[in-house]
Every structure is written in C-alpha cells, then in structure tokens.
C-alpha cells in the first residue's frame, strides 16, 4: 500500500470519527442552511436536512483523499453540504419551471449595490483621516438616521466608535457571534434603506 492510500485511510478514519462525534451539530447547521436556502421548512425540514447530511457524508468519505487532515473538518464538510443544497436548489428550480429562490425575492435594486459596497464604505468612513472627518461625520449621521434605534446603536458602536468583535460583544452584553449577526443585519437593513432612498431620489 503506498503512502497516498495510507493517507486516504487515515483521512477516512478521521472524518468518520469527527462525523460520529459531531452528527447533531452538523445536522443543526445543515438544517439552518436548508431552511435559509428555501429548500424546505416546517415538518419537511428535518427530512431534507437528513438527506443532505447523508449525502454530505457519502461525498466526504468518497473524496476523503481531498481532505487536509491538518485542518478541522467542519468547514470542509459544511462546504460540501452547501454545494449539495445549491445543486438541489437548481434542480428544484428546473422542476418547478423557475420558482423563485429566497435570494430572488430580495428587491432587484439590491443588485445595483453589492453586499460589499456598503461594508467597504462604512469601513472607509470609520477609518477616514482627520481632513475628511467632517464629511464623514455628516455621512454617518445621515446613514444612521435611516435605521431603527436598535440598529443605530450597534452601527454607532461598530462604525463611529470602531468597536469590533469581542469588545462589541461585551459592550452589547451578548456573545461575539450574536454581536456579529446583529451588526450584519443592521448593515443589511441600512443598505436596503439607503437603496430605497436613492431610488426615491432618482424618481423625484
């Protein structure tokens, strides 16, 4: 048996052990993916998530040689699951003659401003040099006026005061993950609000 085959067998065992130990955690995350992808919800969610989990394990074990054993397997496994869900999305669309995906239900205007634009813009504003500070302050004030007080609070902390990650979590009294989710949602709502305002301006 050559070195590669030994490696493949080792990978196989490592993946198997990890999946056995983390089955429920993987299943939870896959359920989240399935739900968010619009592939299933309600009572069918568990069944579809189990199918994806099952197929993910088959794919992972069949391609164990492509796994880098020096790294934790979770991101690799979830990447496979995401691809499987993506494929099922495509298949479902084909079957339903273009039934819209959740992402298609978002306003078309969002295509005009990519998800990244506002993130970059906010980052630029919060790290601007003193000469353009005045302009930045005006921009921030205007942007924050577009969102709810709750979103304004987290955006104020993250953008104006530059508090990120663990510090932001401590300030908000929640976990780092929850703080990120809250910030991301606030940015996204801000993006939508701004886009709507821009469109209104164009019309008038």
């Amino acid at each position, binding site marked *: 048996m050559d070195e590669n085959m030994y490696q493949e067998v080792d990978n196989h065992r490592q993946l198997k052990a990890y999946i056995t130990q983390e089955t429920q955690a993987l299943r939870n995350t896959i*359920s989240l993916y399935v739900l968010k992808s619009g592939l299933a919800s309600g009572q069918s969610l568990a069944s579809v998530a189990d199918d994806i989990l099952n197929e993910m394990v088959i794919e992972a074990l069949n391609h164990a040689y492509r796994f880098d054993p020096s790294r934790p397997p*979770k991101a690799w496994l979830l990447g496979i699951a995401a691809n499987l869900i993506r494929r099922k999305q495509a298949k479902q669309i084909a079957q339903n003659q273009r039934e819209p995906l959740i992402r298609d239900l978002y306003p078309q205007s969002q295509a005009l401003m990519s998800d990244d634009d506002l993130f970059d813009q906010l980052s630029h504003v919060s790290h601007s040099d003193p000469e353009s500070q005045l302009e930045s302050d005006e921009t921030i004030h205007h942007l924050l006026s577009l969102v709810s007080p709750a979103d304004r609070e987290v955006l104020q902390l993250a953008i104006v005061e530059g508090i990120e990650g663990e510090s932001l979590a401590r300030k908000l009294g929640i976990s780092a993950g929850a703080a990120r989710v809250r910030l991301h949602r606030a940015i996204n709502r801000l993006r939508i609000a701004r886009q709507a305002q821009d469109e209104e301006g164009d019309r008038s």
Partner: protein
Amino acid sequence: MTVLTAYQREKLAYQYSIALEQGDMDRLARILSVAQGDAALENMLLEINAVLETELSPMEMPTLSNTNKEPEMPVFAKVKRKRGSRQLSITALVASVATILLGFLMIAVSNHQAFQSSVLVNSYNQSSLSLISDYFSVWEAGAFNRLSAILTPDHIYHEPDSLDLDGINPLKTHLEKFNNLFSQVDIMMINAKPFADEWVVDFQLEAHIDNQMLVEDASATFKFSDGKIAYTALSINLDDFAHRLQAIVEASQSADRIPQTKTSTSQGMELVNAFFAAWNNNAPLTMDSILSDSHTYIEADALTSFKNARLKERINKLNEVLVNVKFEILQSISDEKSVWVQFRLTSEFAPSIRRMGLPQTGTVIFEIKDGLINRTELSINLDRYINRFSNSEMLLATPTVEPTIPAPLPEIPTVEPIHFSN
C-alpha cells in the same frame, strides 16, 4: 498561504451572514472554502451559525426525538476490535474455508419466497437501525453470543454463490470462522436507507492478517420480524474475500523467499504497465505486442478462461458499461517468471453517471514467458464488480452531476466577487 487580516475576516463573516440570509449557497460554499484555511474565520462562521441555529424553532431543529421518520443518516459501527496479531498458516486458512464450504453443503436450502411473505412490512423505526448497528458491532467484536438478542430464531443469511444459512447457529459458526482467519476485522457502515420493507446498508469491510490488509465495499439488505432481524443478505461472499486477502499474503510471502532479479523485474513491470495502460486507455489492440499467442486470462470464479481475442472483446464490452476505468498499481513484486501486482480499480458506471464507484482493490499475477505475458490471473470477478456497482447505484440514487467538493484553496484566498481594499 496568505494570512487573512482582521478586516478581511470581518468582511467575509459579513458576506457569509448575507449569503445565508439570502440562501445563496454558491457564495456560502466559496466562503467556507476560504475558512478551511483560516481557523479564526472558521470560528467566526461557526459562531454565526450557532446564533442563527438558536433562532430556529424547536420544530425546525431536527433531533432524534422530534423526527417521526427514522433518520437516514450514516451510522458507524462503534467498536474497533484490536485482537492480538494472530499468525495463521495457509493450511489452516484453507482448512477453515473448506470447513465453511462443507457447512454450507450440509444446510438445507431455505424457501426464500415463503420467508418474504412472513416479514412484517413498514417496520421502520429507530430500533431497526439500532439492530443493524448492533449486528455489525457483534460481528466486528466477535461477540456472537449476542446474536440471539438481535436475530429471529429462524433468521436467514444469504451470500452470493453460497447456500443460505438457516437459523442463528450456522451463521454464528460462519462469522466466527471468518473472524478467526484474521487478526483484526473492522466494519464501517457508510450509509443506510430504507426500501420497501427492508433496509439497505452500504458498509466497508476491512480485514488484517500478517501485516497485510484488504478493504472492500459491500452492501447488506436487512428485513425484520417481531422486532428482530429476520433476513440478512450480503453483496459479497466472505470466502472469496478471505481468498483475496490470502492471495495478497501469499504473494507477499513468496516475494520474501524468491530473490528478485533486477533485469527481469524491470522487463516484467514494463509489460504489466503496458497491460494496464491498454486497459485504462480502452486500447486492447495494443496488447498484441505484450501478450504471447498462448496467453490465458482468468478472473476469479469465472467459468472459463479467455484467450487473446476473447479478452479484447471482454475489455471492449466492460468499457462500454464502465467509463473512466482506471487500474492503479498500489504495489508490485516480481521475480524472473512472474509479476504480482496489487491494484485499485476505479470507474464510473456508464448507464447514468451518477457517482464515482467506490474503489475495488485486487491482485493480478502475471506469468512472464519469453519476454511476453503468458498468463494473467485476476483475484476479482469484473462481472461481480459491475453488478455491485449497478446495485449501489440503484440503492444510493444520489445524483452527482458535478464535483461537490470545494476547490482546493487558492494561494490568495479570493472569494469572487470580493476585492479586498485593505
């Protein structure tokens, strides 16, 4: 590999959240592929997952307790048996196998049809899967006294090319003898799915002897009655499996005894390489230059051997069913008269290319005479390989149109259409 900056991680985490909210699995997968190379980013993403998972309602979160349906998730045999290394002579092995075969002849043929009608339908519950898992654990651990708690008294056991075993004791004897041939037996369940009134389980059988090992993929069908397993059918014949591993051991031992000749080794290997290349490239005509006129080709359990013309026909026929056939040499040993090769065969099943076939390992012994291959003896049967292939196709029914594995990490972790500005 480039290390991500804190800003890049935050941005990717943001993009991940958005992709998830929008159900954009394509983008999600690409960000996950970047996270494979960055533990801090991976932690961020997993934290986000954890938060979002808590927002799902209990009804939406599938657990064993709230799914009515039996989970179709992979289950792995739990016990890894590590018995002491047991040296077993060839004579003992042959005697054991002969005893097993004799045992088969003494067992009456069961009425399979009559049995089928007695099996309870719709017996899908958690205990079915637990029973199967226990069955493999018992086999792996050699704890055969526990079989009576898992199997019905009139349990029927089936293997290809063998008489069925009726009742628990014959099966116990059969499996016990099989296990005793090896220093270690490992069974890993790969996949389990219900079909009609039965469960079909793909598993991997691994056995070790004298520092040699053989791993083969197989499937088993289970039927249930009165809360126990009433019928088990394996897709492989365990005696054949034992023979295949023994062939590996024998070849390894003979290689130790016979001094190797450099010249003949090189010449023999050239012929062997040309043989596999012709097969892999679906060019059997090129074999004319490496096969002697009296060349004979033999497969395990084949009714007849093949002369050159029929061998070429067979290769053409096989390559119509299997595509992307690849024989890969894992190891080889040669002397003046023969070359022993352990190979791994992979291919895709042509009728509906759904997935790559699980690899099949085997051995070939090439007899070299006057600078040509005079005899080729395969340890596997390719018809059986195809049958197993088509069965697993039917059972798994997992459509795979394109690779699902995230691409290898690029040197620079770019996730289109991200343009890092920092």
